[in-house]
């Protein structure tokens, strides 16, 4: 069983200039084909900018290289993209689910509150980063409601895959953001997605709370108390991707 760590969308800040980030996607070999956790931008996004991407062209520096799309990276790793049978989404912002139309036959596993927020009209600032087009091809949704399950101390929902995987609701950044925990050979890989910025030591606490929601302190404490769980986040430094290809 292998977990590939992919950067499917490079997005660097203009200010401060040294914040150079990629968007982290996990490609997991499971008992039921390949599972992709988040997708980055899709091939369609490079052909036709969404409004939010136009805005990000102004406030960030992006190479916008179509070869970064998950479907191309998976092919370069030697897999057949058709074998991606399941997509698990941490949340449905444009930079995490733009690749959905590239995998029209895959089942899309998502927390029901996130699906609801995506389908709803915009009610809060963070809803403006949803792009309706990403879910408009009539995919096969698999929605999850709370079940009362627990992963460590977190409320969690078991996903139907082997290795063991959990959806961990961490609302704040969006109304239904979830982390994803995956069992590895020597512990856990916990993708906290945009609920935490553990690796950014410079961002002030109030900014993290404003943009990413209230869970950062709890996740940082969890990471310190549980060395067997390797915590990663939705956006990682570019040089981190150079050093970490597998988990």
């Amino acid at each position, binding site marked *: 069983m292998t977990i590939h760590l992919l950067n499917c969308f490079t997005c660097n800040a203009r200010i401060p200039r040294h914040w150079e980030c990629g968007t982290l996607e996990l490609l997991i070999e499971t008992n039921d084909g390949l599972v992709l956790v988040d997708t980055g931008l899709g091939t369609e996004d490079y052909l036709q900018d969404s409004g939010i991407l136009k805005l990000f062209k102004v406030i960030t520096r992006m190479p916008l290289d179509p070869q970064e799309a998950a479907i191309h990276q998976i092919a370069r790793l030697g897999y057949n993209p058709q074998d991606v049978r399941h997509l698990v989404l941490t949340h449905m912002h444009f930079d995490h689910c733009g690749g959905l139309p590239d995998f029209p036959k895959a089942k899309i596993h998502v927390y*029901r509150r996130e*699906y*609801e927020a995506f389908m709803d009209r915009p009610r809060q600032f963070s809803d403006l980063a949803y792009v309706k087009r990403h879910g408009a091809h009539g995919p096969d949704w698999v*929605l*999850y*409601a*709370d079940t009362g399950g627990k992963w460590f101390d977190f409320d969690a929902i078991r996903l139907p895959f082997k290795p063991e995987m959990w959806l961990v609701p961490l609302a704040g950044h969006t109304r239904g953001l979830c982390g994803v925990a995956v069992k590895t050979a020597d512990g856990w890989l916990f993708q906290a997605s945009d609920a935490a910025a553990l690796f950014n030591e410079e961002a002030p606490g109030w900014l993290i709370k404003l943009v990413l929601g209230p869970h950062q302190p709890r996740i940082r404490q969890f990471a310190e108390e549980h060395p067997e769980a390797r915590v990663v986040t939705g956006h990682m430094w570019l040089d981190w991707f150079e050093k970490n290809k597998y988990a």
Partner: protein
Amino acid sequence: MTIHILNCVTMNPWWPRWHLGGVCLLVETDDGPVLVDTGLGLHDYTHPSRLVRFYIADMGIQMNPDNAVVRQITRYGWKPEDVHHIVMTHLHFDHAGGLPDFPNAKVHVFQPEYAARCQGRGLMDRMAYNQADFIHDPQWVFHGDPQTKWYDFAAIRLDFNPEMYLIPLTGHTRGHCGVVIREGNRWLFHAADALPTNAQFDLLPDWIFRLVIGPHVPRLKAFAQTHPEVRMLAGHMWLDWFDKEGSL
């Protein structure tokens, strides 16, 4: 084990000039009472949304809060907090209106139906899902792909005693289901809005059926004729039918 068939929304449309009651089942299981659909709720009578006001005028809905299922179950000695489970055939306003009256109940629904009500893209969706029915944020229990069979129908087993199944019959909505309940060696098949009014197949021409209630009418008709041990029930029955047949 008793099944009570209640009328939880009375409609008197202008044309055809029918007098209809909307079916709600109160099933007394080992787990306590389980409701199948909920009709209109108290909030529809006290603060009807624009959508419900439209149907009150158009469908001649009778504004009688004593019709709400939360009041009717007291007749059988149950309190609202005794209801731990509600099974939904679909989430249209005339079936889901009573959900807020049972804020602590688990709401069982076929997952595509929940997706359809969130998406709400088509005109029919926007005209019939009342978002006010869900603002109390119920505890949803989603049921996915059918794993078993009931007769020839793909079915989802519900974990109650007596045996109950959800039978996906999509068409009227994208996740519409029927509900089957065992009664001894017979069955009650509540096909809800996949069946014509009063489970009568000769009321209207076939093309209207296909348009409004989906593609399952011929199949259900054949099934009803060959399986006399199965009692067929539609989502809307004649008003006087409830007086005659209401309790099993």
